[in-house]
């Protein structure tokens, strides 16, 4: 393997006061892979995504994108290098229509799309996530699942090489979940690598090539979904008796 991995995280560390939220995390994502980031609540998964996407600056460690160090860069610079994300608590732009939300992703990211062509691209992306014909609808009128779809369309508008999903499948009903899983799977076909924080086991098993499991900021396991989910230490972490 001569090409550097798409994403290489090494020794990534972030403290909040006395708490070490992410503690020496190592993580690698290759082009086109779907990697699951698992762990009990409070284990540092969201913080890890925030460090990769630039929302937070690490205290130590490196993040390399295609071999270039990006840790500590402003989030807009990281976004322009092709890293898009969604948020654990869905964030849509409340004063705008669906199409404008997607235009926001097109206009400033990796493409600088603007004008009539951008409108067409926005509508294509809305169709892609299952919001066909909803371009003119205000985001406030969307249901929760549709807001999540819109957020994904906005992230895809950046034409990312790496997509960070923070519990994007959480809170969906069984039908929506199946659609969501298919949608994420279809992104792999486009060559997008995905690092997804997820609790939904069905999704993890059917989507992820590999998983990294965190507990109390540290990586405690890595491997195929079935291997890590059978790992005794992982089971102990999820049952919450790691002190025993």
């Amino acid at each position, binding site marked *: 393997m001569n090409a550097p991995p798409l994403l290489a995280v090494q020794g990534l560390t972030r403290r909040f006061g006395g708490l070490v939220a992410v503690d020496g995390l190592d993580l690698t994502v290759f082009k086109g892979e779907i990697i699951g980031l698992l762990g009990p609540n409070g284990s540092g998964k969201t913080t890890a995504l925030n460090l990769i996407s630039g929302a937070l600056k690490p205290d130590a460690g490196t993040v390399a994108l295609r071999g270039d160090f990006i840790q500590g860069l402003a989030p807009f610079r990281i976004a*322009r290098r092709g890293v898009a994300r969604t948020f654990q608590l869905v964030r849509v732009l409340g004063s705008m229509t669906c199409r404008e939300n997607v235009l926001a992703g097109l206009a*400033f990211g990796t493409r*600088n799309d603007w004008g009539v062509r951008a409108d067409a691209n926005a509508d294509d992306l809305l169709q892609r996530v299952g919001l066909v014909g909803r371009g003119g609808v205000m985001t406030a009128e969307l249901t929760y699942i549709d807001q999540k779809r819109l957020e994904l369309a906005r992230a895809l508008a950046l034409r990312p090489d790496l997509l960070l999903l923070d519990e994007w499948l959480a809170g969906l009903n069984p039908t929506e979940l199946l659609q969501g899983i298919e949608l994420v799977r279809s992104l792999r076909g486009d060559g997008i690598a995905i690092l997804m924080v997820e609790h939904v086991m069905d999704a993890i098993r059917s989507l992820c090539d590999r998983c990294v499991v965190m507990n109390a900021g540290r990586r405690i396991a890595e491997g195929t979904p079935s291997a890590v989910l059978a790992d005794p230490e992982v089971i102990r972490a999820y049952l919450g008796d790691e002190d025993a």
Partner: protein
Amino acid sequence: MTLPLPVKIVGAAVAVAMLACVPLVADGYRLSLAIGLLNYTVLATAWALFSGPTRYVSLATVAFFGIGVYTVAVLGEVLAWPLVLLIALGIGVVLALIIGLSTLRLSGVYFVIFTFGLAELVRQLVTWFEVNKTRTLGRYVFVDITTDQIYWQLLALAVMVFAAGLLIRRSRLGLALRVIGDDETVARHVGINVTAAKVALFMLSAAFMTLCGAVMAPRWSYIDPAIAFNPVTSFQVLIMALLGGVHRLYGPVLGVVPLTLLFEFLLANFPNHFSILIGIAFMLIVYAIPNGIAGLAEKLWARVKGARP
């Protein structure tokens, strides 16, 4: 409601042409009132250009305005008028750049207090300089500019500030600002350089405020720092913009017209209680019409439209 673009442009041109005739027909008092209206139109619209989309409440208006005034007072006699304006513009924009880079990371109330403090600081610095270096507190403004010319220059500035607002609204910067106004975190993560966008807008807004001060300077024959950097100006501009509504380009004007008239009336009749009265006006406005007259008008219009079959 929405007219085709050529109709709008012709309409605007006709309106500007008619406004340009005001000095030809108005007497001294009315012209003076019209100058006041245009002055506050430029200031309040420029204020809303920045504060509307970013939701930063700035009280630095008079810092820039005063710099414009003082540049004219100092250089008006020695340099050609366009050069004086250009220098004022340069000073205002550079100051805005410095303030922007150093303060736009502050949020909410800290920004308000900082901008207020800044305007006071500039006033104190100018006072200190005048007292200790030039050994005069006041200055006479000697420039060869008639009242009619002041009016026309203000009208030109008003046209430019509206044109700037329209152009921004249609640009990527305009979209960036709306995204920032909705959710700054999202803005950063879709690749928007939030600081650069805010600073650029702050500089543009300051440019108009500084030029406005420069153009207004010849209205006074005598100025001192207390006149040029009067903090009440910043508050008045803020109240006018909020009353009119900052989410529309034409919003601030809707606040400028009634309040300029009201302030005129208050100043003439209750000069000693003026500050208290505008404070009360401010509170009433924020409580009663949070989205301003523009928001109120839109709501009424929507109701009228909704009532029709």
